């Protein structure tokens, strides 16, 4: 195979994967409803090797996808059939940590949680905390502008990235942003963050670090209805407090999290609210008294306050494991990621419950209540004919509901494969055309992460199992 031989000039055999056994595990990210087999996977170890891979793609007009740990829940890092997959896991070094400037410079394969671990000896940490933080890479966080429980107070990834060295789809290198928060000219970095890999590949990323909060005050409140928990969120916000995080889990999610990590949640609760205050001790102490009062009046039937660092971690462990833990309740599920205005949380939840009953599918709710970011998990069994289609339809209805309530189809998981069909629900034709013009200006051949985010394009490789039918018939071969 001539094409791969040429790629082999840049990548030794161990870092150019093309055998079926090597490719199969790369066929899906964390959204296994989609599968596609790439032509090959390369594992670059330097910026120059990423440039070489991208140039090879540009030369041969082969679409490519850059990927980190493959934890995307929207199929954002799904490979392209016959395209190149650029695995950035070996570019996982911390290049510089400057506690004075409070910045960390990392390669894209560096793991989110490792940033905080590396900064901890200096009393610093990296604020964005997606649930996948022990696994997901900074490169992927950047591409999808990842959020997390604590983004209520601190903002998303985009608020914590200062600069990125980027390989554009034609193989040119640019540096976007700088080490200071203030920059001259348009916010190119702002455009790049959250562009879902459509505008290029970041190979070096400069992150902002924050001083670690001195004290936490973590409250776990149990309610006998989801609405009460939702109303409590509104009450906390109305009181003028700005907690670090406010999270809600419903009874199905509680059941799953308990089974997974034994977090010690009240099992019979219909809804759990986690509220966390953080900051300087005197401030947190003063706010805590106020918060406890608000929670008491919100109708919680049980309130617990974490008494130690271990208890706090246990509360969070359950919450952060909740998505994957739902795998214990159901063989398959779809995680949705819609956003509604905070004030309409209760309405949205009631509507989701109604839809769940109508479709005959269980829906578990785990969400960042503070910023109205819902994560309904639609449980289905893919082995039952028609259930997947019904689940997808239900997911679509939920997204439409979010848009109708004045929200958005994605909070932090991105559009990827999964939600691209819903883009027209949110954006007008003119909006989408403008977005496409930007994309084409940088990537006229649409090579970089082709087929994602924009509606239409190549049909998703839904449930396509194993080798191409022609391969199976022995007509074509990848070796």
């Amino acid at each position, binding site marked *: 195979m001539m094409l791969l031989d040429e790629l082999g000039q840049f990548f030794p055999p161990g870092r150019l994967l093309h055998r079926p056994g090597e490719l199969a*595990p790369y066929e*899906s990210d964390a959204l296994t409803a989609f599968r596609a087999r790439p032509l090959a996977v390369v594992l670059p170890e330097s910026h120059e090797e990423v440039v070489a891979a991208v140039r090879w793609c540009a030369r041969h007009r082969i679409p490519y996808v850059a990927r980190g740990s493959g934890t995307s829940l929207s199929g954002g890092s799904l490979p392209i059939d016959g395209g190149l997959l650029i695995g950035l896991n070996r570019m996982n070094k911390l290049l510089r940590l400057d506690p004075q400037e409070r910045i960390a410079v990392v390669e894209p394969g560096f793991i989110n949680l490792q940033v905080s671990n590396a900064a901890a000896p200096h009393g610093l940490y990296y604020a964005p905390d997606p649930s996948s933080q022990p*696994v997901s890479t900074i490169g992927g966080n950047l591409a999808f502008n990842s959020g997390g429980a604590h983004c209520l107070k601190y903002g998303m990834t985009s608020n914590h990235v200062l600069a990125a060295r980027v390989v554009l789809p034609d193989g040119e290198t640019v540096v976007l942003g700088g080490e200071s928060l203030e920059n001259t000219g348009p916010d190119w970095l702002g455009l790049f963050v959250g562009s879902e890999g459509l505008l290029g590949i970041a190979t070096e990323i400069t992150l902002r670090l924050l001083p670690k909060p001195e004290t936490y005050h973590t409250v776990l409140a149990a309610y006998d209805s989801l609405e009460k928990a939702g109303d409590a969120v509104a009450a906390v916000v109305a009181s003028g407090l700005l907690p670090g995080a406010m999270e809600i889990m419903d009874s199905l999610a509680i059941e799953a999290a308990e089974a997974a990590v034994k977090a010690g949640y009240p099992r019979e609760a219909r809804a759990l609210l986690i509220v966390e205050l953080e900051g300087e001790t005197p401030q947190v102490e003063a706010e805590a008294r106020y918060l406890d009062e608000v929670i008491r009046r919100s109708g919680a039937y049980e309130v617990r306050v974490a008494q130690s660092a271990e208890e706090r971690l246990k509360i969070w462990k359950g919450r952060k494991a909740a998505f994957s833990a739902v795998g214990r309740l159901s*063989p398959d599920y779809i995680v949705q990621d819609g956003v509604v205005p905070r004030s309409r949380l209760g309405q949205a939840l009631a509507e989701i419950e109604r839809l769940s009953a109508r479709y005959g599918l269980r829906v578990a709710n785990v969400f960042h209540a503070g910023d109205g970011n819902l994560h309904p998990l639609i449980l289905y069994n893919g082995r039952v004919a028609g259930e997947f289609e019904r689940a997808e339809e239900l997911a679509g209805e939920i997204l439409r509901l979010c848009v109708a309530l004045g929200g958005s189809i994605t909070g932090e998981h991105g559009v990827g494969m999964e939600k691209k069909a819903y883009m027209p629900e949110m954006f007008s034709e003119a909006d989408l055309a403008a977005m496409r013009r930007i994309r084409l200006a940088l990537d006229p051949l649409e090579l970089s992460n082709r087929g994602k985010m924009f509606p239409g394009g190549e049909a998703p490789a839904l449930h396509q199992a194993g080798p191409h039918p022609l391969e199976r018939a022995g007509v074509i071969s990848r070796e």
Partner: protein
Amino acid sequence: MQHKIDVEKLGPQGEIMAHAIEACVHCGFCLPACPTYQVLGEEMDSPRGRIFLMKEVLEGNLSMEEAQPYLDKCLGCQGCVTACPSGVPYGELITTYRGWSEPQRHRSPFQKLFRMGLQETLPYPSRFRAAAALGRLGKPIKPLLPPLLQAPLELLPDQLPKHQPLPELVPAEGERRARVAFLAGCAQQVLQPNFNHATLRVLARNGVEVVIPKGQGCCGALAMHTGERARALHFARTNLSAFAGEYDAILTNAAGCGSGLKEYPLLFHGEPEQAQAHQLAAKVKDVSVFLVELGLKAVPPLERPLKVAYHDACHLAHAQQVRAEPRRLLRSIPGLELVEIPEGELCCGSAGTYNLEQPEIATALGERKARNILATGAELVVTGNIGCFTQIQSHLRRLGREIPVLHTLELLDRAYAQSPILPNR
């Protein structure tokens, strides 16, 4: 994850595998917990990658040979089981898969001979003793041997301890608080006979009568985890009858054997002895768990303060979820300061015969473990498994910074006897 595995065609083993694959949601939380992923950084060498590969093979989309190199590299440490939020019984999957694939597999005559050599010696103390003596003679010519044969020699001690046969019964000292059966293990009887003698002394001192049933053999874990299912069943049947008596518990002091016995229900799934296997497994306890539950008799204070690192054996921490009890035993020794090893949940690379079959990865992990242990500044490292013991000792030695390694029960035994814990300096 959805699959199209023909469960009916595969029988009871197919059910186990399909069930595990179904539970995986491909979220990737297992990646940081996987030692081979940590070393190699490739999806094929991660737990979810391997699950995907097994699924593809079982569905008939991928040849067994294509998947084999990556499945062979799995240590079976089950670090991923601890990390998995979705509750995938990965250990059951890989063990069953290996048992299913091994008989259909093509191996070179040399590989076959090597594997058979291991399977025919390690589980039999007398044979292993003879082989180890022979191996000692081979040490001087080690560099001339093929790499596969160098690894076992590397791990052999220069001097084998004297054979110290075990009694059939050890009476309780003072009032009898419990009566248990004890599985003696195989390799440890040859390499570190004191593990068992120290364990028996501590048990007796705590008022436990210990029966060491005659006719017991290897637990079968070694065979089971390398796909030799028939051989494992043979061993396990022997033990089902040897341990059939009435005991308060069946104890082991080797993590690998304990988890091996607890896997009998998996091994006998669909076999006539299924119920018996469940009964036996329900009684199996690591000696540390048993002692904590029983209530350890007071230990006299140490002569001088001692900083000790406890190494979690994967087959205790991950396979049996036993972490707290050995630490509680150690903390009950006055004067002992217990320190945690960084990356403590990561396998040391021993993993049964893994360090003999995959020496490169095992060495990378062994060295990493040794460095992490040394970083704690501990004067002594303690563990509850013979494999880890050998691996850690060998890698500390390689780094030229050997600190003593003891079994948890050996340390406890010395503390009770008020004998010096460390050699005089």
